[in-house]
């Protein structure tokens, strides 16, 4: 995407290296909006690049809009309060967050159990094969 540099000779369209600069400094611009330190190269680029200055103005609007969300409260029914208070009682309701942890633990136990069963079956199979081979060798001799 071409950009325009106000300090360039005759205010012409920028060339490829400047486009690269805009992209290179793009993430720094996202930090500069709330006063993060800039390296001198990025700083001098932002001071002269109209495209980056326009982006910075957008970032400022974005941050104001984000901050304005702080005062919003999403509507939630008051049964949530009762759920919270019930959960706080001794032996309170186990909610899904805890159940997810328990499910993960039981899946792990089932996985280990499965491996153990498979290993036992394998060992038993190997014993049967070995005893059959031994029996054949005895018959052959």
């Amino acid at each position, binding site marked *: 995407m*071409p950009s325009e540099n106000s300090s360039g000779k005759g205010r012409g369209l920028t060339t490829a290296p400047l486009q690269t600069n805009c992209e290179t400094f793009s993430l720094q611009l996202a930090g500069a909006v709330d006063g993060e330190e800039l390296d001198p190269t990025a700083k001098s680029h932002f001071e002269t690049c109209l495209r980056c200055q326009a982006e910075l103005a957008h970032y400022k609007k974005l941050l104001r*809009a*984000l901050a304005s*969300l702080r005062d919003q409260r*999403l509507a939630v029914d008051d049964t*949530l309060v009762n759920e919270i208070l019930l959960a706080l009682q001794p032996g309170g309701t186990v909610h899904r967050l805890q159940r997810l942890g328990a499910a993960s633990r039981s899946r792990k136990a089932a996985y280990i159990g499965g491996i153990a069963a498979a290993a036992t079956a394998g060992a038993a199979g190997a014993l049967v094969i070995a005893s059959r081979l031994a029996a054949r060798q005895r018959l052959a001799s």
Partner: protein
Amino acid sequence: MDSNRTNELVAAAKEGDHRAFEELVRETYADTYTLAYRLVGDEEDARDVVQETYLRAHKGLKKFRGDAQLSTWLHRITANCASTFLGRRGRHRYDQLSEDFELADDVPDRDPVFQADLGDLRSNLVAALMELPPKLRTVVVLRDIYDLSHDAIATELDISESAAKVRLHRARKRLRESLYPMGEEQAHAV
């Protein structure tokens, strides 16, 4: 609730007064739910995160020294619970917030020009937030909406401060690109 009343309730709750803790829950649960919903993007999941938040808050109340506001302390616990939840869920959902989701409370910005632009911008912003990957969304919500420090965010998400900053910058960039796509014409127009 004014801060003196909050401090009284916290002090009483620390002494084992269940009524005081109950009142704190009633005063703060809508705010906690709003944050939880913004972090996990699902109503049922948010309710679970809120429950876990208050369980942890109840257990850890004695450690709350009052250096920060109670709301900030609760936000940090919520962030930690939501992060744990998203990790345990093992996959991340990208549920869109409905455009007409209900708002219970909204304090208007005093700048009338900004307020005029804000309506559309805010609904687009909420939708754009929900399209972010949870790792990016979490950081931008905590920093730019709830004003948590980089240090606090890094601690609660168990990442380095520089990683938190990189995620924040990426999240802001994506939001900016989504809300203000810069075409060639726009770039030349400025």
